[in-house]
């Protein structure tokens, strides 16, 4: 994978859109075919996963989002409660250490809040956090647009 860069060349939004649309519809069809319960959660996961896959591994937020989805699935399958607690504690320690670095220095109180909203944001420095946030917002807008049109077509 690429090392971190601060270039602002975002991947072409229209191609992300078409890749997302194709991936999401494919996942949607699969959910429909299987007809298992917990449809709401599965549609949501399909939407997030398709978005992250459409963006690819160049972006930190999409890598983190994919990782989160896989981790959640793994956690549901296995019940290693002790391990879970350990991981949680590690995360907390890391967060506290990180916060003191740039955020307070630059005076961004709201960066803390933003870190929780952008996938993988807790492990980023401020610069990449802002860069990733901009890209993430663009992709979320695309996600909403596509899902809205799928909804419109289906409810005809």
């Amino acid at each position: 994978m690429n090392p971190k860069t601060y270039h602002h060349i975002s991947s072409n939004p229209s191609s992300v859109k078409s890749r997302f649309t194709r991936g999401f519809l494919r996942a949607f069809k699969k959910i429909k075919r299987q007809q298992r319960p917990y449809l709401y959660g599965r549609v949501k996961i399909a939407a997030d996963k398709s978005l992250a896959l459409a963006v690819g591994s160049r972006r930190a937020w999409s890598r983190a989002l994919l990782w989160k989805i896989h981790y959640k699935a793994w956690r549901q399958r296995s019940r290693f409660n002790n391990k879970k607690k350990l991981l949680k504690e590690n995360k907390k320690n890391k967060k506290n250490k990180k916060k003191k670095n740039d955020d307070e220095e630059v005076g961004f109180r709201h960066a803390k809040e933003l870190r929780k909203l952008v996938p993988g944001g807790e492990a980023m420095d401020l610069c990449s956090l802002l860069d990733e946030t901009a890209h993430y917002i663009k992709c979320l807008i695309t996600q909403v647009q596509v899902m809205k049109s799928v909804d419109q077509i289906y409810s005809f």
Partner: protein
Amino acid sequence: MSSRRSRSRQSGTSRITDDQINDLVSKLQQLLPELRNSRSDKVSAAKVLQETCSYIRNLHREVDGLSERLSELLATTDTAQAAIIRNLLMQ
């Protein structure tokens, strides 16, 4: 997970300049419907970040709502109808 950690440690050593931050903040501002039309020197960075957070939260809520709607549709649409739509979409 481990690869992500090591990467963040590496990048932590690079210095961030105010110009870079300002540039990124104004880029963010352009994406926010609330602040897009106001001049960048009139809006503080804190305000931009605050609006960004609430905008992302709104988008998340919208995605949640749409997922719910789509899953309801999945549960109700009959297969024949869905097949026609699928064919239309796949053209």
